[in-house]
């Protein structure tokens, strides 16, 4: 069996829509140097590097070999892991398995994206089959719009209820100095923002961001010596269930991949009542309806109860389970880094380094990743080694 593994340092860039002051490697360096400093390490202490992004956003092939001057991977083992939107959690889990295997003691993981250099949607639509799927139902928005309308139809949820998720996350971002969109929005502003694909409006969805995130994983025995309160990985679960968008969601069942990954992660971490036992959740919510529906799939509340759960303040900073103290994906979305930011933010909470966005005494945290063809990744982090 694998060793226990903990996160001992996190770093992220100052996210913006366009970081014209740095190139990709410099941006990666910014996150890496901050993560190493957070872990009180130097690059010499790093045994291996894992990096991920989505190739076609920057049009760089072999990003692992290209990035060594920013990542510090020269004369070290490097590996690239990439799975679309879930890249960040895939990278985090690769870091975890590097260490759990017993082969490496300290592993640096990096997710990054310089979206300003790309045409994001033009690149994303090529994820689906060129003959069958690409011209009908591809890209980020159409399938999410379908999911949202199906949810509204089934449970009578309203656009206003969804808009509250944006109001919450954008409000939380005011406490996060790294967040991209640090301006609160009102319900009225969300409702009046331009319609992109019914019922999704501009302020219901995530932005495109330039940014990078780096997280250092360390082995049991090493981690405790580096930081006073490491964030232990308690479980990882992955469901990249589908290849075809037409298969990807049974709108009557909800987000099946998240339900299954969540159940497995809870079981392995010994969690039976997630909303009560978890202290904080950093969820990959790329649009507002996910903030209603996916918390049901994660078992925070029952089917159809998401709107009430959110409206009643259960997911606010002082609620039963604060969701996205960082401001979440709706405030910052550097795609290859986005899911790793969820893991990093969950670790920051456990390590007690959240400053203005800290949930007091967070001991058990949930991070998720979403991407590809309605895929889900779940990681649970804790103050106890387990």
């Amino acid at each position: 069996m694998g060793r226990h593994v903990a996160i001992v340092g996190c770093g992220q860039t100052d996210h913006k829509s366009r970081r014209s002051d740095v190139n990709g490697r410099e941006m990666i360096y910014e996150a890496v140097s901050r993560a190493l400093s957070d872990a009180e390490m130097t690059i010499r202490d790093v045994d291996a590097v894992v990096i991920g992004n989505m190739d076609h956003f920057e049009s760089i092939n072999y990003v692992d070999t290209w990035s060594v001057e920013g990542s510090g991977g020269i004369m070290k083992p490097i590996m690239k892991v990439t799975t679309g939107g879930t890249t960040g959690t895939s990278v985090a889990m690769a870091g975890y398995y590097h260490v759990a295997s017993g082969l490496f003691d300290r592993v640096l993981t990096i997710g990054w994206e310089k979206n300003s250099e790309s045409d994001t949607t033009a690149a994303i639509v090529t994820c689906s089959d060129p003959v069958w799927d690409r011209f009908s139902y591809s890209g980020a928005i159409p399938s999410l719009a379908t999911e949202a309308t199906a949810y509204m139809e089934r449970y009578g949820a309203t656009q206003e209820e969804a808009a509250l998720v944006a109001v919450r996350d954008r409000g939380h971002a005011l406490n996060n100095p790294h967040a991209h969109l640090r301006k609160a929005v009102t319900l009225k502003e969300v409702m009046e923002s331009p319609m992109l694909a019914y019922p999704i409006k501009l302020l219901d969805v995530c932005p495109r961001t330039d940014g990078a995130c780096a997280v250092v994983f360390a082995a049991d025995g090493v981690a405790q010596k580096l930081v006073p309160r490491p964030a232990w990985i308690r479980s990882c679960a992955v469901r990249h269930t589908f290849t075809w968008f037409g298969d990807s969601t049974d709108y009557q069942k909800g987000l099946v991949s998240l339900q299954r990954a969540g159940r497995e992660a809870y079981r392995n971490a010994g969690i039976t009542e997630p909303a009560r036992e978890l202290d904080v959740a950093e969820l990959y919510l790329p649009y507002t309806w996910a903030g209603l529906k996916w918390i049901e799939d994660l078992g925070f509340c029952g089917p159809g109860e998401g709107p009430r759960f959110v409206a009643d303040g259960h997911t606010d900073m002082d609620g039963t389970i604060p969701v996205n103290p960082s401001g979440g994906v709706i405030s910052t979305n550097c795609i290859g880094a986005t899911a790793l930011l969820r893991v990093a933010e969950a670790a920051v909470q456990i390590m007690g380094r959240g400053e203005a966005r800290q949930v007091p005494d967070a001991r058990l945290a949930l991070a998720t990743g979403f991407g590809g063809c309605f895929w889900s990744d779940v990681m649970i982090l804790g103050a106890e080694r387990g």
Partner: protein
Amino acid sequence: MEPIAITGVSQTPYRERMIDKTAYDLVYEVTRDALADAGLGIHDIDNVITVSNDFVDGRTISSMAVGEAAGAHDKNISTVEGDGAFGAFYGAMRALSGFDTTLVVAHGKGSEGDMGLITNAMFDPVYQRHLGIDALTAAALQADVYMTRYGLTEEDFAEVSVKNHQNARNNPLAHLPLDITVSDVMKSERLSDPIKRLDCSPISDGAAAIIISTGRASSRSRTRPIWIRGVAHCSDAYFPGDRNLADSPALRRAAKRAYAMAGITNPLKNIDVVELYDAFSYMEPLWLEGMGFSEPGSGARLLKDGVTRMDGILPVNPSGGVLSAHALMVAGLSRIVECVLQLRGEAREHQVPGAETALAQGINGPCGQSHCVWILSVNQ
């Protein structure tokens, strides 16, 4: 390291242009065949690593296309983008972390893309890319540096091509089995001085898969387990101009670590067969030096002395190597598959008699910037 083993392997034939098969078809076939080889069903697989590249596949999230074909529905899956030897290493890490039975599958359909543009995209977009540099021209620079530094000749490299294409004649899966002479290589079209057409690997379509089992799970497979005794990877600097291209310190370091894990003290004595990543003919002697089989600059002597021939003490690339079949992303995994077949004694016409320990290599990036070295053995 806890004992882990490769208990199932498969690969497709490598061919120029498989117009009758999609990438999903190739992945499905090797998944099915690796399971059949191991005597397992898809339900015995508890996690999957796919290997793909968005540039080669011409689509973003290229992993999305093949998850279903790899039987990963409802399983824990991840994707390494790079050579299959690296993907297999991630699979090995997961086996060591507690997964019982890991499937690793790689595919490459180079025929669907423009390899010049695809490999041009690995160079710096600001300083290098517009010069038109690609895998071929960068390799030519490396070959030139290597020749100049050690007084090697184009004929030295041509010998490698002759040997490996000859070996490929004993491997029905190879793309380019050829009966050629040094003179044929020398007379072949000069693509990027000093590299000629017959110094280059072909662009092949194909796929490969392996199954990695923990020691306790290995008995469920019907095959003789081939044990993973050492595996390590390492990367050099990025800009070719920052590197000593006539040496491969990253390979040296990866090999040293893999040897230490496997208890190898004298590689030439302890290793019986090598399957290395000879994308171009000059790479074979250069990588052999990096692996410590000879002193710097004397890798070509190994072939002159007959050491690396089929009847030598260290046959190199009995399959015909990458020079004879090069499906991008697959080639390093194919080296591992070939080593497993050698160690099981199932390599048929290209079998090295009595092979007990084998080395497989994969590379990533320009001029072999990043290397992955595997030591496999019949002994646990």
